[in-house]
């Protein structure tokens, strides 16, 4: 039988596993999915010069691999949209209603690293846009840490090291028992994130790779992502955010977020 090699960010593992097995059943093509942290799958794709389909959680990463010539730009597609939100403990014990509450002294707040994690960049951009310079520097001082990836960011919340994080809406899908979402105001959000997938340049089976991507984007595929708490389509995402927004793209934020 034919084979496909898939590199995917580990965050998509659960839905992707389902999609893969559905796809395998449907087409008889065997799919080997390698999951890993973003850095792992990137180095694997760059250094092994193998694989057919590349799946990453955000567009910034896709940009990098495209620059390295690993993925063909024209094959890139978005799926599984994610909207930045504030995530808090179940029941919102600190009663956090919006961005300004993150400045409160009794609120421990963490965000992802704006240097290399997309949600970190989005957060920085959001804060830069919506807070005053004084508030920004206060927030920069009180942010307890930068998480180096999305799951860790959520873990900090779940393990009660922080009271609020600036994360994505799907985090509630990951852990409905412990978390709750506080939506941002529509105009606070600049852009939303989307998982991106593309065909790897070195692929020896482009047709099948494209076929898999198409399956991923099909309603059947979208439903699976929906099941795991993702916004399955652009429309749903915009509805959730409250307005139409840019998808992906390079967030703009001040250098202070990286080096204080």
């Amino acid at each position: 039988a034919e084979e496909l090699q898939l590199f995917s960010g580990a965050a998509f593992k659960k839905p992707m596993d389902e999609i893969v097995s559905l796809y395998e059943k449907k087409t008889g093509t065997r799919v080997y999915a390698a999951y890993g942290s973003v850095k792992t799958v990137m180095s694997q794709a760059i250094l092994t010069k193998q694989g057919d389909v590349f799946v990453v959680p955000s567009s910034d990463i896709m940009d990098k691999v495209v620059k390295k010539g690993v993925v063909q730009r024209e094959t890139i597609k978005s799926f599984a949209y994610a909207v930045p939100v504030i995530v808090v403990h179940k029941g919102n014990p600190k009663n956090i209603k919006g961005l300004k509450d993150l400045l409160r002294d009794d609120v421990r707040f963490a965000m992802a690293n704006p240097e290399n994690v997309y949600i970190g960049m989005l957060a920085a951009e959001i804060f830069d846009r919506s807070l005053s310079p004084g508030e920004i520097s206060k927030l920069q001082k009180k942010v307890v840490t930068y998480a180096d990836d999305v799951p860790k960011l959520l873990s900090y919340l779940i393990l009660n090291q922080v009271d609020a994080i600036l994360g994505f809406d799907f985090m509630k899908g990951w852990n409905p028992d412990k978390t709750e979402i506080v939506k941002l105001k529509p105009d606070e959000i600049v852009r939303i994130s989307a998982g991106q997938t593309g065909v790897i340049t070195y692929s020896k089976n482009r047709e099948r790779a494209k076929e898999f991507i198409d399956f991923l984007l099909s309603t059947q595929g979208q439903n699976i992502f929906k099941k795991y708490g993702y916004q399955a389509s652009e429309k749903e995402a915009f509805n959730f955010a409250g307005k139409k927004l840019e998808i992906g793209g390079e967030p703009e934020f001040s250098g202070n977020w990286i080096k204080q």
Partner: protein
Amino acid sequence: MTFKRLSIFFAISVFLLYLGLVLSLFYFYKGSLFMEALLSERILYSIKISLIAATVATVLSIVIALPAAYALSRFDFKGKQLIDTILEFPMIVSPAALGAMLLIFFNTPIGMWIQDNTISFVFTAYGIILAQFVTTVGIATRLIKAAMDEIPQRYEDVARSLGASPMEAFLTVTLPLSKRGVIAGGILTWAKAIGEFGATITIAGSMAMKTETLPVAIFMRLATADIEGTVVLIMILISIALTILYGVRLLARKQDA
């Protein structure tokens, strides 16, 4: 008496430190998940491949470390100091970086040749073994060398006077005399191998039913902040590994007596 108590106190502190960590797992423990995980085919496969790979990698490491350690402990030759210094290399470089280095290596002409003409390591179970081997062979050599350094050369000399060739003297005298050190080294190597994750996932990937070892499976749970799932898998890993190590140690001790 006070000194004895004091030192035992420290030993127990180390124990409590680790016990505390293990016990705090129960804070997130869901009994149902445990059985579910244990009975799932995927987890069983992970357990199997973890055990096999760690054991093969340990055997390889020790087999190579033994003569290497002996050479470093007994002979003087050019470059010995250099070799002695580089043994800690896989410790210094974090596993993920080590994995990246391995990938880089297989990206060089020599590496590609090896991939194409001998065994293919990237994204295969051999890659797991390779990753574990590379992470451990240096420490294994170091530990066995340390043990052999404590065995006086004299016993070998006397063995030679009784007719043993250098090889026979090594096999019948130095090796059994450093047995405890070799076993301790082997245990540490195996522990490190079975716990190895960063290099493994980088070079071998994380394909279910193919290269997904227990630590990789744990990572997968962590990757969606699935604390309960993580906890269960960590418990499985710890209990299997510690039980095996306990058994090995018991066996070694029995043989000693």
